[in-house]
């Protein structure tokens, strides 16, 4: 009797469970699962805007290996990551640390420094193009007042990656410092009190207490930053003309993908680029998880 009742209830619960999941599962099956496998399929075809796509096996992947534009965009992407991730981590940690230490005005500083996080990339792009302007931009004007030569921030091939990285760092520190600040606030104050009693200097307590106890948050922020910066597109698109010489040196893998897929409509090849992006991001993330044992301390 009781058993019958519980199985009946269990069936009802199972029914309810699947009914509640139904809208999500329908959406995910179409827009994620089907889309994922379709993208793999497209990468084996010569799909473009015209004609029926034909199956061409691994041709796109072979073409990739000998495409200098692909290799250059991949190298450039790694440059963005190598320049921006450490800067975002160091600055984000310092800002969060000082925000936590500041007794007065802390919420004012936090609000002010958070503004880029709620600003749309296009407005940031507009703003920085004006600041970087060769003749009238504020940065070059300050430089010329200091007798430093003007710099062609957005057209000098050797510089353009760094100019874009500065904008990227400027806009990303504001988000990451919030996560790091939350991490800092979770560290119990008794550790610092104990260290102070033992006569530890502020430097010692930062390196021996703060950093180790913050390391799980730092790890999380690193993972997120690497993934986000690896997919850099917005600021390149917004700040460099597609036909400019500088674009050769600024182009990231995702920009190249966008260009192939939606500007020149070489969709089959673009799909293979996106698969490479997926595999690289997956590998980098796995490597980071392997190496976390060396530096991340969990209580």
């Amino acid at each position, binding site marked *: 009797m009781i058993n019958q009742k519980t199985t009946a209830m269990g069936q009802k619960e*199972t029914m*309810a469970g699947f009914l509640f999941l139904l809208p999500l599962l329908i959406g995910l099956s179409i*827009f994620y699962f089907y889309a994922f496998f379709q993208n793999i399929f497209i990468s084996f075809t010569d799909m473009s805007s015209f004609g029926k796509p034909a199956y061409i096996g691994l041709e796109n992947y072979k073409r990739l290996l000998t495409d200098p534009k692909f290799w250059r965009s991949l190298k450039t992407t790694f440059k963005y990551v190598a320049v921006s991730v450490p800067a975002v981590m160091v600055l984000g940690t310092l800002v969060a640390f000082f925000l936590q230490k500041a007794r007065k005005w802390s919420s004012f500083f936090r609000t002010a420094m958070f503004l880029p996080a709620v600003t749309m990339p296009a407005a940031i792009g507009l703003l920085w193009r004006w600041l970087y302007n060769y003749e009238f931009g504020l940065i070059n004007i300050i430089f010329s007042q200091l007798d430093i030569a003007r710099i062609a921030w957005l057209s000098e091939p050797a510089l353009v990656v760094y100019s874009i990285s500065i904008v990227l760092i400027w806009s990303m520190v504001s988000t990451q410092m919030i996560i790091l600040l939350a991490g800092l606030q979770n560290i119990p104050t008794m550790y610092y009190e104990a260290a102070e009693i033992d006569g530890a200097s502020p430097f010692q307590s930062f390196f021996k207490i703060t950093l180790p106890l913050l390391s799980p948050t730092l790890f999380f922020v690193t993972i997120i930053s690497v993934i986000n910066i690896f997919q850099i597109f917005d600021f390149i698109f917004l700040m460099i003309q597609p036909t400019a010489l500088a674009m050769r040196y600024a182009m990231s893998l995702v920009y190249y993908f966008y260009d192939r897929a939606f500007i020149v409509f070489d969709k089959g090849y673009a799909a293979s680029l996106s698969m490479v992006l997926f595999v690289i991001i997956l590998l980098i993330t796995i490597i980071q998880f392997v190496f976390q044992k060396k530096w991340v301390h969990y209580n």
Partner: protein
Amino acid sequence: MRSKNSALIYIFLLAGTIITIGPFIWMFLTSVKTYNEAIKTPPTLFPEIFQWVNYKIIMEKFPFGILYFNTFLVVAMVVAGQLVISSMAGYAFARLRFPGRNVIFMIVLGLLMIPGQIFLIPHYKIMVGLKITNTLIALAIPGLFNVFGVFLLRQVFLTIPKELDEAAIVDGCGYFRIYSLIMLPLAKSGMVSLAILTSLWTWKNLMWPLIVNRSLTKMTLSAGLAFLIGEHTTYYEQVMAGGIISVLPVIILFLFFQRHIVEGIAVSGIKG
């Protein structure tokens, strides 16, 4: 010793603040200058002739009204759809027991590992197939299904005491009434966080509108503003006025909802 340290802290924070909001202030100052003054070397800090007319000119040249309206509609559609779909799924994953639940949840979570670019060509093809490219609906649809939202709300539902639904079942309450009358009201702050983060993400998204829509009047402001960069870059004072128009309303909203935004980002660590 202590005061020397705290002076250092404030110097650092002040420098950070100037570097962060200085550009925004410069944007505003340029936007109220005349053309000749905007490109004057050395520049004036405060405008000699203060004028609002740049705002009027850029609003006549560029359809800010339509772009704001589009953005508002798309954000409303995505947020409403996502709250319903994610909260239903989050409830099922957190509160109901059924075979395969954990496996399905792990598969759903696995989707978070895949970069969004993988889906763009297929999404575009789906929109072409449905014949809805260049519409606002097309901007909203892929955003409705958000794995992160499901995960966030599942965590919220997990913290609600189990006795509540047990008591409700004894009283003869069905699952839908438990979900809508008991669970949703208790998950309000999680729902607000999700709504705000989703709005922010939809507000900032650039690539998808550029891909699926062609005409400027079918863009969100984020993508529409990219057209402004391409078209009218000579008159910096007007472009900066356009920048202020697209930045200021959100900054004001942010000051109101600051606590929710900051908490949401701190909890989730979602891309900003």
